[in-house]
């Protein structure tokens, strides 16, 4: 499984999950887990997704997330989950 983390930071407003997950759906990326919280006053949403069947390369997904972020006025990033596994799992 090629897992990645989508992180959304900014101000809480309606439609964030809808917009981000629609974009992911269009790229055939499956959402595995969602968590959201307020951190230092900022809305923070984290999504763990499975990119195994994604229809486009990673860089294109990242570009698409950028577009969605601009659209909804939030910072939307995607990064491979290997990073977190490496750091926190032996």
């Amino acid at each position, binding site marked *: 499984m090629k897992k990645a983390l989508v992180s959304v930071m900014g101000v809480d407003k309606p439609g964030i999950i809808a917009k981000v997950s629609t974009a992911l759906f269009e790229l055939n990326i499956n959402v595995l887990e969602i968590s959201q919280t307020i951190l230092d006053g900022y809305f923070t949403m984290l999504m763990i997704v499975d990119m195994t069947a994604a229809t486009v390369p990673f860089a294109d997904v990242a570009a698409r997330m950028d577009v969605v972020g601009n659209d909804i006025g939030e910072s939307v990033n995607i990064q491979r989950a290997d*990073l977190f596994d490496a*750091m926190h799992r032996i």
Partner: protein
Amino acid sequence: MIEINEIMQTMQMIHEQHFDIRTITMGISLLSCKKNTDRETAEAVYEKVTRSAGKLVAVGETLEAELGVPIVNKRISVTPVSMISGSDPMAIALALDEAAKQVGVNFIGGFGALMHKGSTIAEECLLESMPEVFQKTERLCGSVNVGSTRSGINMDAVRKMGHIIKKTAELTADTDGFGCAKIVVFANAVEDNPFMAGAFHGVGEPECVVNVGVSGPGVVQRALSEIHGQPFDVLAETIKRTAFKITRVGELVAQEAAKRLGVPFGIVDLSLAPTPARGDSVAYILKEMGLEMAGAPGTTAALAMLNDMVKKGGVMASSHVGGLSGAFIPVSEDIGMIEAAQAGCLTIEKMEAMTCVCSVGLDMIAIPGDTSANTIAGIIADEAAIGMVNNKTTAVRLIPAPGKVAGDTVNFGGLFGFAPIMKVNSANNDEFVERGGRIPPPLHSLRN
């Protein structure tokens, strides 16, 4: 499954605590480039470097985007040039500088020589060319190894390096002697160091290799900020755990980069490398341990522990650890060190003591422009002696800023930062330095 709090911790490290991969450095052997003339060699060097490292920057940038961790520098180290050069090393220097520009790396290291026991004709020519080379090139760095635990100290090379540093400073006087920031004088130089300016690709290395240097003084500082008042045992454990996490990311990046570049993975260098940014300082870690500033009594002990715990935490996180692996204590590149030097709390003599217990040496220290070549050579000899006797790598990177006196400030910009000119003990040492010859290697029994 990864826990949300672990994700948040990683993201805070990156976004708030300046955690980054400091460098992906590709080591390239130039031994196959040696031709009949230096001009032909230079052409072969340019061709090999641009071919081998053509994808380096792109791969670094892709990995940075995919993992979301900044990879600050992409660099190249090459075989010490004196092994392939003849009477005109300048031609090869210019080819290396051009190659670096062509592939988009900010520094290329290896314009140097290994002279710990003596010098060849080519090495003498290369040494001679150094001041002009570092005046005329932009991205080239070099180092000279003048001593080792097994062979002692080559005092002829030490004396010459004093003059070369002086001359380089004079030729680059318009930038306060910045040329000297690209020259490192080593004892016990390592062959797989990915950090500049001292990186070179040793002769024991493979054809091509990828080495990665991690960093993260800010991450360690932050971890320590949460355990004030706790005993040293807790301090040690906290540093180890933090170093482990940082190094794991270095290992991941190194393995991925090697795979994508199609070259073997060499080592991860565990060094804590500061930058002039606030919150990215090794000196601030010492502060967090309870010292008012770097240089206060206790500094050497604090640094000894920090250095050792970084290694202990890091070795388990990587399959191959190497390079310089320790805490760097440059002056101009560390805001906490700059502040301590400005306040007069940190002197060159105290730093010399600090270098006995940590990586690497007297680094990026600006000294008065009228410091004599022999005084510089004396400082190099002292530092090399520390390395030789303690079986560790030591280095000297001094900048005698032309026209500046103690108390002035020089600004090198970017990652090189700015530095107060530090006072140098200028008592005469001419007879000592000018003796020449070699200091024999130390005995390894009867250690007291």
